[in-house]
């Protein structure tokens, strides 16, 4: 019996976005990373193209994180004391090809480090490793607005991705990213309409869509993942149906959203019914990442190197058009 295969005829395409700039492009990165370009839903190679594999990043902080559990900190040892050593460890030892630096020390209710110090950290990390960089602020709008322009200047030419820009604080970030040729992270609170509106506002200021990544706000596994999953699916369907203002690649944070919760954090002694913590926590981050990849994620930021590594293996298997035999 001939089964007639069902192929969708999509008209749209996800906009390719490139992170990092090599010497030829005015930066000092050893390589660049391009994401996007899909003309089909994730990994449906029978129907369209996925010219660029989704990419993974490791998250590093500019201060030792207070709320990371010991199991996670163990992966980095003393390197968490210093962002430069931390960055090197991720690249040299764990093979990360993309890093995400969180400027946690700038938080006003914490260390309240000045913007200049944050800019120095960014400069030092860019000097220490030659992979493309994502830089995140502390999340306080006023402070981020002071920090972002300095960071943007410090990284001029390197085409870093800077965020988070959201409804209330996108303008100054857009302006400084435009000036220095960076990529911006455009965030909406699990809302497709606000997401689209954000992208319209940002592009209306003159930012090209090729320099925007969308952050749909990641929901943790067991903590609202389904909302994020469905918004991502709807955004991606919108892109494939030709909506250019929903066609930017998607960035998500499975690391951050896994290690916040007790399913990953609790040691086995505190939760014997859940079994051994290492496997459980890495599986938690990995499972979150797989679900997000199936919803259309293009850039995934991890906390544990093993979760990133296993996700890389998964992506590699999924990117071979005929698949890789298990």
């Amino acid at each position: 019996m001939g089964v007639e295969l069902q192929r969708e005829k999509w008209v749209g395409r996800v906009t390719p976005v490139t992170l990092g700039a090599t010497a030829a492009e005015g930066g000092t990165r050893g390589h660049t990373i391009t994401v996007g370009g899909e003309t089909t839903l994730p990994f449906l190679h029978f129907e369209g193209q996925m010219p660029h594999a989704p990419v993974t990043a490791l998250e590093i902080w500019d201060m030792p994180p207070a709320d990371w559990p010991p199991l996670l900190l163990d992966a980095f040892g003393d390197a968490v004391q210093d962002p430069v050593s931390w960055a090197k460890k991720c690249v040299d030892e764990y093979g990360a090809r993309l890093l995400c630096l969180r400027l946690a020390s700038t938080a006003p209710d914490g260390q309240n480090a000045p913007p200049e110090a944050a800019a120095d950290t960014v400069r030092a990390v860019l000097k220490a490793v030659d992979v493309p960089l994502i830089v995140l602020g502390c999340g306080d709008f006023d402070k981020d607005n002071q920090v972002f322009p300095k960071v943007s200047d410090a990284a001029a030419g390197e085409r870093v991705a800077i965020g988070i820009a959201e409804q209330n604080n996108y303008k100054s970030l857009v302006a400084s990213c435009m000036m220095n040729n960076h990529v911006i992270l455009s965030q909406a609170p699990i809302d497709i309409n606000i997401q689209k509106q954000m992208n319209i506002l940002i592009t209306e200021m003159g930012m090209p869509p090729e320099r925007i990544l969308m952050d749909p706000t990641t929901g943790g596994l067991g903590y609202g993942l389904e909302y994020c999953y469905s918004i991502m699916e709807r955004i991606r369907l919108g892109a494939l149906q030709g909506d250019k203002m929903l066609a930017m690649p998607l960035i998500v944070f499975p690391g951050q959203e896994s290690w916040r919760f007790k399913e990953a954090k609790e040691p086995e002694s505190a939760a014997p019914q859940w079994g051994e913590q290492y496997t459980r926590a890495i599986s938690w981050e990995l499972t979150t990442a797989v679900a997000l990849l199936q919803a259309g994620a293009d850039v995934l930021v991890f906390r544990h190197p093993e979760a990133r590594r296993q996700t890389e293996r998964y992506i590699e298997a999924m990117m071979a058009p005929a698949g890789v035999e298990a």
Partner: protein
Amino acid sequence: MALTGLEIYKLLPKKNCRECGSPTCLAFAMQLAQGKGSLDACPYVSEEAKEKLGAASQPPIRLVTIGTGEHALQVGDETVLFRHDKTFFHQPPLAVTVYDDWEDARIQARLAELKAFSWERVGLVLRVDMVAVVHRAEEPGRLAAAAQMVQAALPYPLYLESAEAGAVEAALQAVGAGKPLIAAATPENWQAWVELAKKYGCPLVVSAEGLDALAELAEKVAAAGVKDLVLDSRPATLVQALTDQTQIRRLAIRKKFRPLGYPTLVRVPQGDAWQATAYAATLIAKYGGVLLLPAEVGIPNVLPLVTLRQNIYTDPQKPIQVQPGIYPVGEPGPDAPVLVTTNFSLTYFTVMSDVEASKIPAYMLICDTDGTSVLTAWAAGKFSAESIAETMDKFKLAEKVNHRRLILPGFVAVLSGKLQSLTNWEVVVGPRESAGLPNFLRARLSA
């Protein structure tokens, strides 16, 4: 594809005898067309008519029941490709594998582990749902012995697999009353499996490589009288599995393609627990039916998988709710702080985990807002000074704590004045985002 009243009328006996309770056959047909009443009410209807009418009212993907009684599982009857289009209805059962060539002690240890693995999350029990017993032993009778061991230890439905129908038949003599899922009918040997499935009334896996061969086999087996089928397309890779699952779902729902209108089987390959977890997660998200997990996938891998399954199969229109009440976080004493919030499960969990992160024991007062978040509930009038005051009374908050102080979510700071005058409690406005709670609570404690 519902039939019209006239189409149904043509299939009725046209005796107008009124025994169905309708004045005429036509009136009866019109009723059926509107989905009212049942064809069984007419004692004279022909077998042919029953079949035609039955087919027209069948769902695009057949609902298949595995097992009996309280632990029976239903799989299939999905109606959409994306959960946001409506919802996914029947969670894919997770089956953990034991092999009949394992020593008894090893099987028992595995079963004990599965028995212990069950916990409640927002009122829903998360656990493994099935045990797959796979025949690998030399002795033909070993499958029956292993299946009996499993059935004696756990009330979950079974999956029985062997290359030989005879081995499964021997097992069914012992455990067949539990209506296990049996595997697998192939293009070479399906007749023997059809006999077994009929004799014991069991759902049957049909297994053939590729969708063409699978559709052909499923049609033959259905024509031979076994309708409760589960499809196995034997993909060589995960990419192929995703492709097959997507095609089967699209064909069944968009094209009403009957031969593939059944739930599916996913065999997660052996070898590597990490990639097996990723494999299973992929097909929980994308259309998998019964998921067979290999032996090396342990409880710590299963925990995220059952959680993902719960997330993906949550009805987008009906957010999960938490029972209103007073919930302790840690081991709070009478002087512990009290935080008010809504009964939207996500709000509850997020606030709870942020309070946990503060390491300060506290009480959460959960108000009934029909499962909506703080801002949505407030905008809809479901989270008001009055409703908070009522909840405090109802659950006798004043008897739990020796102070009179409430922490209100920052987003509803506007309620604080009214709440204070209604209750005479001091109302403290907390942070807007739950993530601010650890700092907020610690700062208050040291103040």
